[in-house]
């Protein structure tokens, strides 16, 4: 299990999450895969990718509001 810092965009709110893979992270944040992009160092990750302990991950909501 990796403990990662998650930064949510837009907005910039941060929180800490424990998850093994990107798909677990998305699920534990209660998000869906279609509306969010997960970035490590500005590069998109796929649901199956493993997270690294102590890293910072950016979660971008790609949907714009109405």
């Amino acid at each position, binding site marked *: 299990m990796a403990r990662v810092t998650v930064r949510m965009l837009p907005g910039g709110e941060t929180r800490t999450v424990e998850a093994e893979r990107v798909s677990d992270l998305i699920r534990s944040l209660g998000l869906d895969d279609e509306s969010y*992009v997960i970035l490590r160092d500005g590069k998109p990750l796929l649901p*199956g990718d493993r997270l690294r302990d102590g890293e910072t991950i950016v979660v971008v909501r*790609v949907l714009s509001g109405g």
Partner: protein
Amino acid sequence: MAKCSLCGAPAVAEVRYARLRLCREHFLEFVERKVERAVREHHMIRRGEKVVAAISGGKDSATLAGVLARLRERLGFGLVLAHIDLGIGEYSVRSRRASERLADELGLPLLVLSVEELLGDGVPRLAMKARRPACSVCGIVKRYLLNALAIEARADRVATGHNADDIAAYALKAFLTQNLEDLRKQKPATPSIEGLAVSRVKPLYSVYEKESYLYALLRGLPFYHEECPHARLTSLDFHLKEMINKLESRHPGIKLQLVRGLARNADRYPGEDWEPVPCRHCGLISYGGECSFCRLTSRVKGEPLGGKVRGKIRSLIEGSHI
């Protein structure tokens, strides 16, 4: 690390409805082909035409301009960018800057129309004076200025960055509220009406919002990813987008089926009974003799400003390379 289904390089995107994982190069190509197919199928742009792409500074604008810039030689059309500075504080300052950087990056001419310069007030103050919601005033002003710009620049098309998620949410809302005329408005291409209105096209209508974000990001195009301060995440439109994406997660491809189906069927929904006629103040499209922009400015500024604004836009165009 997942591999690209086509070449084996590291994958950066998964396209579940097509059962593909793609590397950067193949993902960019995938989106470009999707847009090219849409443009050809719905005759959005013909050889020799002049296209004005409306850009807000966000991801969809970046993707729209980026893809059209690549398609323009193969399809043989001219392309210029237009940005409307809405005068919504810091949000508009940054959006405008992103639009200017995008135009620079792509080497395309850009014309900026400032609502504050043209009307003396930005959108929030216009809305306050009109006692109307900012988003509805914004819609009227943007639609008018883009059409006026395209008419004055003798353009054949105005292209906007509406993506599949925008259209799916709009369509569902039209169905839920039974405003079936709104379904007809979701056509990927509307025809020009000589002297009154320039054809509007939506080249990204089949591109998912996530794909649009990824395209702009992976191509390194400049864009500003913040929410307009007037947007509401509690709005029906936003909830519908979320709902459709939950459905899409469980049934990959359902969103694509909806927008492609609607593109084919839009004409089968009822249209407005009104015939478009020239606005008696400014001469552009109206239903009933006075356009919504002239009506709005009469109310807020004491006189219909369509004609004056058209004149100002004409001189801006004459002083530019557009």
